[in-house]
């Protein structure tokens, strides 16, 4: 199996996770299970890629130039990409569960998820900002019963 094929499969698995995060209804257990399974499958693929390629790659983590050399090995580059896929998906999953806990609207969650999907940390920062405001708002409402 070529690394391009593995790349496509990994992207497909991650996409299933993101669609479930974005579209599945709140209040049932299956979306969480699907997303978790997708993340575990991708993490196992990551483990396989590291086992298969890492020891044969050059470079390291000491300098930017070392990292560039490290990612010059396609198998390690793919492992790095899968690393993104897994952790972005887990962050998205956390955003969704926090949104459910704080009864945050799906219309507010959706742009955060989209941005997390595209640009990882940026989406997470946006969600943290939204979450901060939401929690303050709940605090205000909770402390002054009308």
């Amino acid at each position, binding site marked *: 199996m070529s690394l391009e094929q593995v790349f496509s499969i990994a992207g497909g698995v991650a996409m299933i996770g993101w669609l479930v995060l974005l579209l599945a209804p709140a209040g049932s257990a299956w979306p969480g299970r699907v997303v978790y399974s997708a993340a575990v499958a991708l993490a196992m*693929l990551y*483990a*396989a*890629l590291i*086992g*298969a*390629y*890492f*020891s044969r790659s050059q470079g390291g983590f000491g300098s930017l130039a070392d990292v560039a050399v490290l990612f010059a090995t396609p*198998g390690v580059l793919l492992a790095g990409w899968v690393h993104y896929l897994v952790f972005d998906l887990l962050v998205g999953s956390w955003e969704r569960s926090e949104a459910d806990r704080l009864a945050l609207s799906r219309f507010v969650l959706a742009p955060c998820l989209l941005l997390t999907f595209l640009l990882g940390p940026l989406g997470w920062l946006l969600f943290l900002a939204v979450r901060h405001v939401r929690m303050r708002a709940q605090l205000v409402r909770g402390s002054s019963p009308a």
Partner: protein
Amino acid sequence: MAVLDLHRSPGIFPFALREELHRRQPVLAAAAEVFLLVALPCVMAMVLDPRELNGVSVWLKPAKFAVSFFLYYATLAWAFGYLPASAAASRSGRLVVNVALVAGSYELLWIIAASSLGVPSHFNRSGVAWTVAYAVAGVGAMSLMIAVLVQGVMLARDRSHAMPEAFRLSWVLGACLAFVGTVISAGFLSQHAGHWVGGIASDAGGVPLFHWSRTGGDLRVPHFWALHAQQILPLAGVFILQVRGAPHRSLVIAAAVVYAGFVAFTFVQALQGRAFLG
């Protein structure tokens, strides 16, 4: 079936079995699952990684060991169900659980590390680090079998759990046979230069799944059968109970003798350089 206590957890067979395993010894049951899951990335790596050792993928061995450890932990966990609930927390029970966990984890990590580097694990005496790692693995393997034996002794001494004596005996004999047989066969194997005796020194074209030599003797064969006495004799015990109904200690003893003879036969066969399956 009273012997297996499956009536406690109704449900679909594999899920009921899993639930029952977790009820019997949750730590070892969880370990069994984790080790089985380790086989998955190994199989993925087998597809991705063209590197070979002895003519087969470097990832075949960790995958095989992961499955074997799943059986090992699952069997230990299952057997704790025939001991009082406090047994796993007793001094010998803790020894069984902890030694099995530590030694098994080391063994598989060592094998995976070697595979990821594309070098052998067993028989790898290149350099100080691998020589020491192999020696530690030898101690670990011995510890794994000691855990089986200690649990076997616990089962032999216990009288609090109501179970047919013949069935208890099948567990005890399974543990003893696994211990003695493995110490002899694996001990001999480790003193040998490799697992082949005559024949082509390659695992390629071996017996499917196991990759035992088909052209000469393979010392992994008696090692395998000795090790899995831990499962096979209790299964024989279940079979004897199912077929004969009443407890038959003599039948269980006969089964153990026959099985020990079979293991000895495969050992001699390997030593003579003859293939287990040609």
